[in-house]
């Protein structure tokens, strides 16, 4: 098993579950949740199934590539099922079998872990999934997004592909993971990981960051005001990432930090409300095309 094979196999599996395979968002985000494929699509009544890889950045989690378990840049494999099928846990478990993990040989646990993302006004209830004591997935029933109660709720399954790959390959640390035959994760990412840490913690120009935050905030505010939801949301994500950088530069006092979070939250809230309004005005188009996004096994149940 290689890292890229793992990502391919996860996509294959979820394609089989009727998921739209999206591609990563081309903007810096802290988690797959921030991709519009999750953050916006979980809103409103339209059914939706998607799966995608999302490179994620959390500047504060960097350790200058010295700690084999902590990275500021890593990957998430994100799945959204809306509404969740009754056997959603079983489907998830069969995705592990699909990767070649024989579940009967192992110890699998669902350990309580609720989830919250204050900048997005999002929260959910669920578990960490433990495989022989290792957390490999966050499994969440989304309850709220942008401060809006979700109806129906969505299930969000977020795999940690590095951890799964460590488990499957037995590699001693993340940098030794084979990415493809003959080349490791470290050979691809180690140097950039180190440089990014240096930038995030020590070199990023603080006054530029402050300026950028303000500019993106103004831009988000302006375009959301003009009813352009996705561009407005993307500018919000920019703010979020710049805030993270300011945070890792250690220049925000606690009070300021809270205020910055609130500023991002407010923009996210407006984007979510705007999105919901927009979809409603469009007559929730995916409600009609339910069959195109529902699981194939469901579709085959229907008389032809």
């Amino acid at each position, binding site marked *: 098993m290689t890292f890229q094979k793992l990502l391919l196999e996860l996509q294959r599996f979820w394609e089989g579950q009727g998921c739209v395979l999206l591609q990563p968002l081309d903007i810096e985000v802290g988690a797959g949740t921030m991709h519009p494929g999750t953050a916006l699509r979980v809103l409103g009544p339209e059914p939706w199934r998607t799966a995608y890889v999302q490179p994620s950045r959390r500047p504060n989690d960097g*350790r200058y590539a*010295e*700690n*084999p*378990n*902590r990275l500021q840049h890593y990957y998430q494999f994100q799945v959204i099922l809306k*509404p*969740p099928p*009754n056997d959603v*846990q*079983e489907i998830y*478990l*069969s995705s592990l*079998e699909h990767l070649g993990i*024989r*579940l*009967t*040989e*192992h*110890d*699998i*646990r*669902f*350990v*309580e872990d*609720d989830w919250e993302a204050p900048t997005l006004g999002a929260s959910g*209830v669920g*578990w960490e999934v433990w*495989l*022989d*004591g*290792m957390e490999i997935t966050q499994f969440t*029933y989304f*309850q709220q997004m942008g401060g809006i109660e979700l*109806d*129906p*709720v969505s299930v969000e399954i977020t795999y940690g592909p590095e951890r799964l790959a*460590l*488990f499957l390959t037995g590699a001693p640390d993340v940098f030794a993971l084979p990415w493809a035959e003959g080349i490791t994760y470290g050979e691809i990412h180690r140097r950039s990981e180190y440089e990014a840490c240096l930038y995030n913690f020590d070199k990023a120009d603080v006054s530029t960051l402050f300026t950028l935050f303000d500019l993106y905030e103004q831009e988000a505010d302006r375009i959301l005001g003009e009813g352009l939801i996705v561009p407005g949301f993307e500018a919000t994500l920019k703010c979020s990432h710049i805030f993270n950088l300011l945070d890792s530069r*250690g220049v925000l*006092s*606690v*009070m300021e930090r*809270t205020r910055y979070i609130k500023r991002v939250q407010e923009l996210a809230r407006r984007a979510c409300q705007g999105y919901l309004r927009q979809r409603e005005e469009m007559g929730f188009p995916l409600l009609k095309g339910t069959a195109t996004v529902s699981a194939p096994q469901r579709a085959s149940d229907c008389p032809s």
Partner: protein
Amino acid sequence: MAKNLLLEVGTEELPARFLAGALSQLKNLLEESLQEKSLVFESCRTFGTPRRLVAFVTGVAEQQTPLLREIRGPTRQQAYDQDGKPTTAALGFARAHGVAVDQLEVRKTDRGEFVFIVREEKGQPALQVLSEVLPQVIRRLSFPKTMRWEATNFRFGRPIRWIVALLGSEIISFEIAGVVSGRRTFGRRLAGGFKAGLEATLNCADDYWTVVDQLGIVIDPEARKEMVARFAVRLAQSVGGRPEIDEDLLEEVTFLVEAPYGLLGSFDDRFLSLPKVLLKTVMRHHQRYFPVLRYDDAKTLLPHFIVICNGKPEDEEKVLKGNKRVLEARFEDAAFSLAEDQKVPFVDLSLRLRSIVFQEGLGTMADKTQRLMKMMGKLAQRMGLDLGKAIRAAELCKVDLATRLVNEFTELQGWVGGHYARQNGEDEEVAIAVEDHYKPLAPGTALPRNRIGVALAIADRLDTLITCFDRQLMPTGSHDPLGLRRAASTLVQLLAETEPGKHLRLSDLLSDGFQIISEAVLLSDDPQQTRQRLTSFLETRLDTLMEERGIDYDLRRAVLAAGFDNVRAALLRAQALQEERKKNPVTFSDAVTAFTRVTNILFQARQRGESMNDAVNTDLLMEAAETELYQMVTQIAGSFNKQVEEEDFGAAFRTISELAPAINRFFDDVLVMHPEESVRRNRLSLLKRIENCLLQIADFRKIET
């Protein structure tokens, strides 16, 4: 024929902390509802695992107990004419209820005579009653946090996936959250390959025991707990050790698995050079493992761990390898944090407190530290502590919040502070105080080990409570995000049950606290009001503590009404009264009755505006009974005061109880409310002297005799 009832609510994994509460609620709600519905049963027990809440009720009657139902009709005068013949009103009433008119009965009520139809209503069949009761019971279960997952937006702890509901061999049918009750149950998710998904169909409720057994599930939490403990002991023994079993972890692990199976793993020896507390915390809190100690030396940690799996895995080696890898990675993280922290001089860590907020609007942890240092200055004086050490402990106590280690392992706050303080060459007493100042972590758990630690624990809580109460952040209902209820309960416990509590008065502490805080923070509310709210909040916590210590309701009220400025004395007074009441109920009750005569008459006199003096004028004592009482009061005063001083409230109570016969004679022979004002006042003044003593123990009027 009575039958047995089985209810199994199958869920996705309920959080371990939800289960004990859910099971006791299930039992209570079910019993209550069956009684309410007059459905007789023998016994009701509940069981559960993370994936099922189970109730088993034996001997359920086939029908409700017949009900005598009385339907009131018109008055007698309306129903019968003068000849006693039924009127049209009576005929109509009878017809409307489908009975013959001669079946009407006349009965007397508070409002006169009426005709009645008395009917024995045959009970509904149990199956029908239960199909209403069971879904109601499930709906009424409450959880610390609930969620939605399906189209009806039903709320529960976690999604419900199946329901078995059988009375004997029949299905009790209902639907809840889109799930229809039936007779199919499911086994452990992974047993025998998940796709095979073990399931079983029950013919009748009694089958359940065999079926869960075959499915390999241990539904009785008590039995599971025993199994877990046995695994731990046996596995530890195999390497010459014994497991360190803490009750909370044992409970949690019991509720994380359906079929416990223990494995013994080991980790690399080199991690043993890390602090033991750190290793144990990682094992316990992060991985839910039991640490292993050397059998003959509980201070030595062995490089092993015990993991309890959910069922026996087919490949134990693989499972152990995975767990070992995770554990060692966690140890690496901890070692990394520890090494990084140690690169930063201790002094610089304390500078970082300036960027850690305490509460929004209440400054940073550096500000809080400043306040704690001042408070410790005051407490050092009041408690006779070494001033330098007391202030130093306050200065250092929050420093560990700026460390990587505490950021990674929050539960180690305090311990990390003590550890780094020691490494920084601080005085041992100071280090212990820093380490201990979060204790007791919960009411009834370990207290700080030294006096400075107690003082610091008090100062910390006082600061939190005053500042948060000032900002109106009081807990409401079960919502207490800042843990203020716990802060208050543990503050009360620190004051009531440690030696330093002897020297402290709540009013002084609050005055010191408000003064120090108002110098540093802009108070947002009227301090007098905040102080009142906080005092009554603390009173409630003290009442709870007394209740937990087995003090009767009336004694608690009596003691609290007489004041609790010295919290420790208040608890001792209550305990003494409880003890006296238990030892000698009759004497106790007699004394209380006599005391109440004293306090009642004084109460009335005050209401009538009578005045009284502190001193008694012996020249005005006329009757023998009052002279006798006066002499006795004077006689006992010395020993009473001494006993109170020594906090021997049992003895003080017995001493003052000696007055009881004299008090009774006084009231029998002497007219207190003498027409002559000076005599009257003198008599009241004598009683007031007794009352002054009594109030040092309790307000005896509140005690039931």
